[in-house]
């Protein structure tokens, strides 16, 4: 079932949590709402679920207006950040809850209910823990119980609030790969909230990036990572080296570099912000004739898949480069080594627009 959010605005007192938010989730997709804390992503999720009311705007499920539908009538599955498992019920009863509270007419018979719950528990690989209480489970197990409980009512839409927020890094990584596989299996339209860009880019079909109650960009993980629409997205989706520069007559100038900039369609001279991702910064010990900035090595951090080299340019500007371990081995970099820095790819934001090179 598709979800459509139209012109949603929500304020809490003087704080505007959401301002005129619009987006769509096609049937069967897994969408991430990504943003820093306070960007309104959780509020938006709760409005979709019906746990919170919007001041303005509509929520449509499958093209039908669901704005005034009661939370229980929306048939959504909701996984809370802290799981919100019923602490006095066993794992089995937690999962069975949604079926037990149904009106007598639509309530499944006990044998069918037991089978449904056991199927769900085996789906989340917790069958052997059916008689445990939530307090006896680890964080990752509780997370999976919460998911099974949400799925028990056969929701048409699954909403997850920071599903891995309270877990440690390793469990987090395992669970997000597992969630992706589960989604491929079930194909229920899902929206999850996260502040972790890696998580969003790895798991989601589509990423909605939010900032201060507005949507900054909507796109596939590839789209938003390689073609960020705004400076905020550029900053938020990874480390970045930022420079102040100028564009003039098809040339962008920053630091000691002047690069041709034919995409400057506006042909307006003016200030520009230039961004380079660390992995787009190449360094050489010798100059090869191409335009480059001179810099010296300040710090090397080589314990990782890539080697991070912190540099200080001759114009006293800091920047970071990420190079492969092999390249690092051939270069024999020392502290204070003199190197030539060349960007492989830059993004320029001039005026209000954006151009890339």
């Amino acid at each position, binding site marked *: 079932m598709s979800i459509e959010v139209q012109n949603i605005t929500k304020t809490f007192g003087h704080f505007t949590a959401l301002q005129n938010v619009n987006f769509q989730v096609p049937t069967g997709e897994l969408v991430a709402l990504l943003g820093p804390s306070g960007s309104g992503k959780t509020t938006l999720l709760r409005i979709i679920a019906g746990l919170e009311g919007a001041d303005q705007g509509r929520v449509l499920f499958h093209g039908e207006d669901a704005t005034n539908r009661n939370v229980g009538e929306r048939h959504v599955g909701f996984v809370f950040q802290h799981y*919100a*498992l019923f602490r006095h019920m066993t794992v089995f009863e937690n999962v069975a809850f949604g079926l037990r*509270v149904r009106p007598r007419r639509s309530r499944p018979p006990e044998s069918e209910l037991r089978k449904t719950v056991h199927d769900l528990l085996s789906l989340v690989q917790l069958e052997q823990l059916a008689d445990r209480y939530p307090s006896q489970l680890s964080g990752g197990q509780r997370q999976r119980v919460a998911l099974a409980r*949400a799925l028990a009512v056969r929701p048409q839409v699954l909403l997850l609030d920071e599903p891995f927020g309270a877990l440690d890094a390793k469990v987090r990584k395992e669970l997000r790969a597992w969630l992706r596989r589960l989604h491929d299996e079930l194909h229920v339209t899902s929206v999850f909230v996260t502040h972790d860009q890696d998580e969003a880019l790895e798991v989601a079909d589509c990423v909605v990036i939010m900032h201060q109650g507005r949507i900054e960009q909507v796109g596939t993980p590839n789209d938003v990572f390689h073609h960020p629409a705004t400076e905020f997205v550029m900053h938020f989706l990874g480390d970045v080296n930022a420079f102040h520069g100028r564009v003039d007559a098809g040339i962008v100038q920053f630091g000691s570099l002047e690069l041709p900039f034919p995409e400057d369609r506006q042909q307006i001279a003016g200030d520009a912000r230039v961004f380079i991702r660390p992995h787009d910064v190449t360094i050489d010990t010798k100059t090869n004739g191409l335009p480059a900035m001179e810099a010296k090595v300040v710090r090397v951090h080589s314990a990782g898949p890539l080697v991070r080299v912190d540099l200080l340019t001759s114009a006293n500007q800091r920047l970071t480069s990420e190079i492969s371990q092999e390249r690092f081995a051939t270069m024999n970099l020392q502290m204070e080594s003199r190197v030539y820095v060349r960007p492989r790819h830059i993004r320029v934001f001039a005026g209000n627009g954006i151009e890339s090179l």
Partner: protein
Amino acid sequence: MAGSIALRHTAELTAQPRATTESGIVRWLLISVALAFLVIFLFVPLVAVFAQGLQKGVTAYFDALRQPDALAAIRLTLLTAAIAVPLNLIFGVAAAWAITKFEFVGKSLLITLIDIPFAVSPVISGLIFVLLFGLQGWLGPWLDSHDIKIIFAVPGIILATIFITFPFVARELIPLMQAQGTEEEQAALVLGASGWQTFFRVTLPNIKWGLLYGVILCNARAMGEFGAVSVVSGHIRGQTNTMPLYVEILYNEYSFAAAFAVASLLALLALVTLAAKSIVEWKTQQQLLTDERVAVKESL
């Protein structure tokens, strides 16, 4: 210089544990003061009540309790508690639910209002009802013309008791329900549960021990209340005397043995309340401990 400062600093740090524990004498002194206090003010009076009640023998003790007036007082006390406690249970749960699960205008006012019976003297609480329902009061003439008796009758006693005891359950539940938050209820609603189902299947099981604790305290006070009830009762023997009032009357008439016999029943109630309270506390503690043990096992 810098070195000497650092040295002094570490010396202070190592001395700290000793500084935070008292010497043996001080500890012994504190404990004995506390114990002496308990013996003088709590244990001796309790023993005295039973000793005085039984001073003329067991037969006299039970005879005093079998007096028609004594039986009437016991019946009235039980009736009052039987009405006041369930009503306050419902009120307390409703108030705690409203305060902790909803945001509404006048919430802080409601919290303050709940505390009024604790804040004002019981005598004032009684006088409020006399002012409202007494012959010279606001509603008095109307009630009199319809032949409804509230003051100096059983309804007044029950009303005063409800007023005095209504904070107990609510006060016990509010912090508990605040700590538990509303997420479980929200989860139940999303899963399609109705409001009643959410209350009976999710909220009530989560608060049952706190609720029981509040009810025990509420009951103890309902049976033991003297001041407010004394003002509205009128002290009509065999009709509007509760046990505490009856004890006072007997005492004023110099029938000490009978007074203490009835008083011993109230003391017995207090002991039963204490025991029940300890069991409930132990249960809650036990629950916490198992939770903790599991948490520790997980982290290992």
